[in-house]
């Protein structure tokens, strides 16, 4: 699964073709923060793909004789259960890794979805203008006034939550920010000479939008997208905690943490240790996002 790698290389691939994008990612890459964040995320991603096979422990197999084992990291006798086991004797380490994989998958896919939906709406609003643009942007403003978490809880609470519905709800929640940026980029690019030249040469509106304008949207919003992946992962865990996230037996951080709360006093590690792994991966993602943001600000201010 090459999910997490989508975060950056997808960006660099676009960047190679264009000026602003190249310098943005190159500049971000030169900072230590970005490299540290990237290393953390890449490392955890590799671990989540190969880890379960290395230890040969199943994330869903019960083993009642081995329940409530303390983390092997603290008590060597409990190896190979690095993070210990839960109330049913399931290995927490492999459960956490599968949870991380699911969280990353949901986070990345929903952010890509928000990006596509938001960009499409924003580009149309900016390019077509007129009353279409007005209606679309009013819609965007209105969405900002909708209590999204309430909507998400309601939708997922009264229907049967699946990864797909969760991703759709996240997309519904997050697209307006992208639409706003896409619109302002389109408005400024539309008047540029190269767009007029393309038009005179006979390029269709669709081609102008997709080939010429679309690549300009990524640089100003790349950092928001990266930070949003982390936000969505937290949100996914919270939904799982309430019980309206991805349903068992698939392990997610939310369900692992919720299971552990019942045993918080005698088996503290069930809740805390997997959460630490989640926090670590979020830290990696946020470092990357922060580095991207500062590089963008430097480029905007014309420093260097």
């Amino acid at each position, binding site marked *: 699964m090459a999910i997490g790698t989508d975060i950056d290389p997808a960006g660099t691939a676009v960047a190679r073709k264009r000026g602003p994008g190249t310098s943005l990612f190159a500049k971000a890459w030169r900072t230590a923060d970005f490299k540290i964040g990237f290393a953390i995320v890449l490392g955890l991603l590799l671990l989540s793909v190969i880890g379960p096979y290395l230890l040969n422990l199943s994330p869903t197999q019960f083993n009642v004789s081995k329940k409530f084992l303390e983390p092997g990291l603290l008590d060597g006798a409990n190896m190979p259960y690095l993070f210990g086991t839960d109330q049913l004797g399931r290995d927490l380490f492999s459960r956490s890794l599968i949870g991380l994989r699911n969280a990353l998958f949901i986070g990345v896919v929903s952010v890509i979805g928000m990006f596509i939906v938001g960009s499409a709406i924003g580009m149309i609003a900016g390019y077509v203008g007129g009353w279409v643009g007005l209606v679309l942007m*009013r819609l965007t403003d*209105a969405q*900002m*006034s*909708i*209590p*999204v*978490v*309430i*909507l998400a*809880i*309601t*939708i997922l*609470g*009264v*229907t049967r939550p699946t990864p797909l519905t969760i991703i759709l709800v996240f997309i519904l929640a997050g697209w307006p920010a992208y639409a706003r940026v896409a619109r302002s980029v389109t408005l400024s690019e539309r008047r540029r000479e190269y767009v007029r030249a393309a038009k005179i040469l006979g390029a269709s509106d669709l081609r102008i939008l997709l080939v010429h304008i679309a690549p300009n949207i990524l640089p100003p919003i790349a950092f928001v997208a990266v*930070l949003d992946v*982390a936000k969505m*992962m*937290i949100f996914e*865990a*919270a939904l799982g*905690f*309430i019980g*309206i996230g991805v349903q068992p037996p698939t392990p997610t*951080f*939310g369900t692992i*943490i919720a299971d*552990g*709360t019942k045993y*918080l*006093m005698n088996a*503290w590690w069930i*809740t*805390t240790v997997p*959460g630490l792994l*989640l*926090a*670590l991966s*979020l*830290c990696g*993602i*946020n*470092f990357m996002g*922060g580095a991207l943001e500062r590089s963008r600000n430097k480029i905007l201010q014309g420093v260097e």
Partner: protein
Amino acid sequence: MLFALDFFMRRIAQGLIIVLLVALLIFTLLRVVPGDPVRIMLGPMVSPSVAEQTAKEMGLRDPVLVQFGRYVGQIAQGDFGRSFVRSAQGASTGGTRAADTFNAANRASVIGLIATAVPYSLLLAGLAFVFALALAVPIGIYAGLRSGKWPDRFALYLSSIFVSLPNIWLALVLIFLVSAKAGWLPAIGYKGFSYAILPAIVLAVELAPVFIRSIAVSVSGNLMEAYVSVGQIRGLSRSRMIVFHVFRNSLIPLLNTLGIQAVGVLLGSLFLIEYVFNFPGVGLLMINAVFQRDFPIIQAISILACVVLVVVNILVDFAATTIDRRLQY
């Protein structure tokens, strides 16, 4: 004054449309998903004919738009209906009672339920704001004044780490360490002011990075403006310029973050955190209502939350235009 009147008229009209659309969305959503509210009200043991009769009497078999029209009419008169499952005595019946008739009069009124819950939520939200600002204002201002130096970097890393802490996990770790192990603060439920401190800390950790960033960026941006050096040339001391002019001008973006972003973040996380801490606010009421399919409560709280967001948006925009008249609406 004409400006203010025009502004409010326009924005309130827009806001009403938004609230109405959100209400319609939630209303329709609740009625198209599987699950018959009559079954929830009367319990599983009731005979189909009685259930059908009750549904007809309550108008639950009418087209959704007709039901919605009636609902809006009731709201206009200030009537948000009664809970499907909560009895007027406060206990939740959960739909398990074998009562054969549904008597709306013995169910709690939605307005009453929300009115009891709102003060708790306001207390929690207010406390979270106070904690977040107490942490963010000094750090943010210091980082802004020393932009690029170590205070700036410290603020940055602190924010990054705070943002990376999943709120539910942080809540449970704090419950475990502060409440269960050390016994310093109570955590579950609400029996006094001290019960609000831990959940407020969790919310403050989530809010603080938003504040730190906007304060730091705003202060450092204002320091670079020409008026700072002009003021100093005219003989005002640097500290005077900072305290009386830079901070004042830095307020505008802070108001903006306080308003839109912070209330947005808070409205979401408050619900989750109340659920984790079993804190008897609007969020807990809402999440329980979702599980019990208590439609009137879900609808009323969604509308309430939407109204809050719309009002905050309007007020923030108004405050911003009054402080800085260059910003038109």
